[in-house]
């Protein structure tokens, strides 16, 4: 999953450096705030531990072996912010000192494994472990699933980054300039290996270590449970469960803004969305072919189904195809649609809140 130099275009590398830098900045700020002077030795030694764990050959069912990243156990013991820093430092040492993974692609590698991996592992572990006892079997299962899902989420993001390269970066003759495989090749090629070997290796290491820590060093698992201030687990305990946190409106706005910026990614999707065909799609030979292919090679009916034809004229969308008619650029149209949609929802929420304040009795009465 370590993308070497040369697989991603300069603009992709720059974009992911920006994403990763945002993650590093937030993580460093958070970890320093929670651990103060303790942060540097803890994160450094934990990064060294992650580096060494990445070298372990994990025996898998069937006699083969695989390598884990250690993101599952890092997120469980350190929490997501500490894990982002530890895994990123380990990846930086691998790239800068051992030549494993590129320098220009370090931002993308850290985004995929450290940021996406840590948050996914932490969220899945918290969701499955819930309020179970620290020594319960449920936590071992949660760790296994968290490690497995985190590695596969990282692999999927990596595959998407690689898969969009030939679409976006090719020369006049159509030669792909960087990673040459489109999404429909890159995603299965990447996911087969991770859904089987790499995902299993991470699951085995995460579950095995949680099981070991339950017997030998339970305090290290308290970071996520928030039952005590364990030496190595203060980051997570303070950030996660000691005081259940609510998502502040400011953060929510930032998250919505980021999601809106990503909306033009929809343009990259090839073909039509299954089941979202308009009556015009049934008459167009090209889209008819796509409908047939997407429906298990079942030929679509020769004419527009009567129900679809009748109901299609009931409502005409103001922004058909996620772009107002006067906007020529599809990317800008997506962004405008996202802003309009979010604005509409916010307005509706404000009106609902206003109504609730005006008639409090009715709101809480029944």
């Amino acid at each position, binding site marked *: 999953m370590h993308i070497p130099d040369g697989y991603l275009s300069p603009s992709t590398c720059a974009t992911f450096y920006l994403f990763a830098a945002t993650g590093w900045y937030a993580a460093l700020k958070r970890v320093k705030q929670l651990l103060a002077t303790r942060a540097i030795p803890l994160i*450094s030694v934990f990064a060294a531990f992650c580096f060494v764990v990445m070298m372990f050959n994990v025996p898998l069912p069937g006699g083969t*072996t695989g390598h884990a990243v250690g993101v599952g156990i890092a997120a469980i013991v350190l929490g997501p912010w500490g894990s982002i820093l530890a895994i990123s430092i380990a990846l930086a040492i691998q790239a*800068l000192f*051992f030549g494993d993974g590129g320098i220009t692609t370090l931002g993308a590698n850290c985004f995929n494994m450290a940021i996406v991996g840590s948050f996914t592992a932490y969220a899945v572990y918290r969701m499955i472990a819930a309020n179970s006892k620290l020594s319960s079997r449920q936590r071992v299962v949660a760790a296994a699933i968290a490690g497995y899902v985190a590695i596969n989420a990282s692999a999927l993001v990596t595959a998407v980054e690689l898969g969009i390269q030939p679409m976006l970066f090719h020369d006049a003759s159509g030669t792909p*300039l960087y990673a040459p495989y489109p999404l429909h090749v890159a995603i299965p090629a990447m996911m087969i290996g991770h859904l089987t070997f790499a995902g299993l290796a991470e699951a085995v290491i995460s579950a095995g270590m949680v099981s070991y820590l339950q017997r030998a060093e339970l305090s290290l698992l308290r970071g996520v449970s928030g039952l005590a201030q364990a*030496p190595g687990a203060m980051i997570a305990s303070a950030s996660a469960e000691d005081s259940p946190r609510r998502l502040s409106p400011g953060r929510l706005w930032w998250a919505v803004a980021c999601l809106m910026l990503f909306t033009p990614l929809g343009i990259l999707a090839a073909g039509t969305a299954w089941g979202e065909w308009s009556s015009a799609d049934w008459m167009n030979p090209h889209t008819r072919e796509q409908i047939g292919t997407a429906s298990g090679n079942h030929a679509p009916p020769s004419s527009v189904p009567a129900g679809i034809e009748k109901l299609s004229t009931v409502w005409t969308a103001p922004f058909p195809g996620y772009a107002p008619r006067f906007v020529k650029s599809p990317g800008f149209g997506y962004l405008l649609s996202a802003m309009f949609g979010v604005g509409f929802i916010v307005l509706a929420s404000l009106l609902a809140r206003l109504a609730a304040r005006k008639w409090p009795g009715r709101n809480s009465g029944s």
Partner: protein
Amino acid sequence: MSRHSFLEATLQGFTRAVSKALQSEHAAAQPGLLQQLDPRVRVLGIFGLVVSVILCRRIEAIAAILLVAIAIAATSRVSLASLAKRVWLVVLGFSGVIALPALFITPGEALATLPALHLSISVQGVRAAVLLVLRVETAATLTTVLVLATAWTHILKALRSLHLPAEIVIMLAMTHRYVFLLIETANQMFESRKSRTVGTLSGAERRKMTARTAGVLLSKSIELSQEVYLAMLSRGFRGEVRLLADFRLKARDYAGLTAFLFTGGLAVWMGR
């Protein structure tokens, strides 16, 4: 796969990492071209060339940078044989295999057909595969030459001079130091376990053993971080990081930086 091969493969991995580090230390101490330059110029110049490799769109321009990288390696007393073993063959094996299907599945003008397999090779496929492999080979050669010709502490100081936050630099330095200590610890644990194991272990036992070793290593790591923290406090650490940066640029450093930037810029211009 034999019952103990996962243990041996892990032990071999540890040995390889340590031997790579020793090789770097040895090469960094040689009186070569790169070694004569200020570490900041080396880091900036090589990073600049790596960026120019990914900016170039023509095979010829990337091949020219590869030749420059080989020339830098040869004049910096970096063994070409070790580069071939450590970089060129490894990259060819990895990226070459990844690039191979691109010959057949990249749509475009047909170049040749394999009659037995009914597969045709496209011109665009060949160009895409060559571009990918050449890019990875060139970038990996440049990075490896930099690492071999520069002590890790100098790379870190150079990164700090280039305004990487001090906390990140100190974490990279400490992680690098403790990586070798933890490799040694893990090596000893695996070796002692190997020496005590008689007969064969089942798959489940092997997985349990690996996870337990990782668990013990985690406990030791946390304990170690506590000790390091106390040692830092006892030496007056109050959260502020100061690094010595006693580099001074000389005339040859300016000349070297100009040469790096000119080469990279020329390659990007020729290869646009």
